[in-house]
């Protein structure tokens, strides 16, 4: 069930977070967390709902601002970054949203073309078509090219959402709950897709989830977020080899249905 390990470069950090704090009013979501993501690594961030997992990747992508701390992404300090530099940086980061966030007024083709034509000027029609076809083929959904998002299943929407981020050839992928709301077989297909993206596109990824099957299948390393801090980090088995009741409870509820 565990994944085959990919060649991770532990000498190169693509994301480095130090002392990151984020609060919403009086609610302290992240309390001074530290985290590194290495090149070609799949890091799974586990935690219960409302523990700030999604907040973490939204800060990394610049959608939310950190209160305190340093967030370095591909050598750029995200806290206090200029709008122009953030735009540049975002082209190197892919973000797969929990609900796919497909543009529902556009066909699949237009969804994929949208970020491409706005980021890479002077592309010829042939080049655009071939890039669209290539990413659709990578996610196994070439036949949906002219469909509207409303005509797709939940799993297909997730795949198209991933394809839309891949079209810009990102170096980092951020997955927000990639298997949420999917049946076990479709979840497994998404897990395989995440691994295939890592191999085929040489991406480093953070996968936010509370699905332990997904964590085990895609994670090179797992980090457990509890009470606004990473309490456990390491390989999947190491993280759950503990007497911490909260961690054990998390494991038991996932695997004893």
């Amino acid at each position: 069930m565990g994944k085959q390990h990919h060649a991770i470069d532990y000498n190169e950090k693509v994301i480095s977070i130090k002392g990151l704090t984020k609060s919403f009013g009086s609610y302290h979501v992240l309390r001074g967390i530290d985290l590194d993501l290495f090149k070609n690594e799949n890091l799974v961030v586990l935690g219960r709902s409302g523990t700030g997992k999604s907040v973490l990747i939204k800060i990394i992508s610049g959608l939310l601002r950190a209160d305190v701390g340093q967030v370095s992404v591909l050598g750029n300090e995200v806290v206090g970054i200029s709008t122009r530099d953030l735009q540049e940086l975002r082209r190197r980061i892919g973000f797969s949203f929990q609900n796919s966030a497909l543009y529902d007024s556009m066909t699949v083709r237009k969804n994929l073309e949208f970020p491409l034509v706005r980021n890479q000027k002077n592309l010829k029609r042939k080049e655009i078509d071939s890039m669209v076809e290539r990413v659709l083929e990578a996610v196994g959904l070439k036949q949906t090219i002219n469909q509207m998002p409303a005509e797709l299943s939940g799993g297909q929407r997730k795949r198209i959402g991933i394809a839309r981020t891949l079209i810009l050839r990102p170096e980092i992928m951020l997955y927000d709950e990639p298997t949420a709301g999917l049946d076990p077989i479709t979840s497994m297909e998404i897990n395989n897709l995440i691994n295939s993206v890592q191999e085929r596109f040489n991406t480093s990824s953070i996968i936010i989830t509370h699905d332990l099957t997904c964590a085990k299948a895609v994670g090179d390393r797992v980090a457990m977020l509890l009470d606004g801090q990473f309490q456990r980090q390491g390989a999947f088995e190491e993280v759950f080899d503990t007497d911490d009741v909260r961690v054990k409870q998390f494991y038991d509820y996932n695997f004893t249905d």
Partner: protein
Amino acid sequence: MDQQNSTSAELPKAEPSIFKGFKQFFIDVYDVFRFIFRFFKEVFAPPYEFRELIKQCWEVGVRSLLLITVTGFIVGLIFTKQSRPSLLQFGATSWIPSLVSIAIMRALAPLVTALISAGRVGSSIGAELGSMRVTEQIDAMEVSGTHPFKYLVCMRTLATTIAIPLLSVYNGLIAMLGGYLNVYVNEGTSFTTYVQQFFQPLGYIDFFSSLAKATIFGFTIGIVGSYKGWNSSSGTAGVGKAANSAVVTAMFLVFIEEVIIVQITGWFR
């Protein structure tokens, strides 16, 4: 006594609700001005989204034509019909075309067009952007390095600013036809004579002020709809609230602007 003092010392000082309300009002006003400033900053900067602008102009303009035609015709017809008895008392029915033209061109055409557009276009912009906000489509555009503000807000607001004055002119002309129907049925006046009498009392200032008014109304409807949708709170209730609030706020502002513009143009007459 001591106990009472210590309790009041521990409690946080509650801000009176009236101050809280004032504070929130000024924060909202600041937010709106920042949003408008951002519009002007981004609308003139590349990349230029001409295709999206044309699409939005089509949505706002062409798709409103039927509604504008029907309402314009009815407004002209009813206004003429209701004015007739009063003028008849003084034997002044020949003044009807002039009266109708002044009322329609100076006030009714831009106002009716703006109110209809606020209902049809403003709510649609509020709901569309609100729905895109809550389903994270705007966030998805942000993180892919595109310019969602320019693509979504600037183009929609620019489209309403361009299309609503054109619709207003069209509405005025259709209302003129509605008025003619009543005049023809009652007096049998020829169309040429009616048109001459209709345009005779109008000066350049009437056309320009009418166009300027409709342009300002168009901008207001676009920017209010966009602002409400862009800042929509989460959930389906948030989308409904954004759409509703876009209509109510835009209509209210249109009336306020009408009063101000009438006052200003009055100084030039």
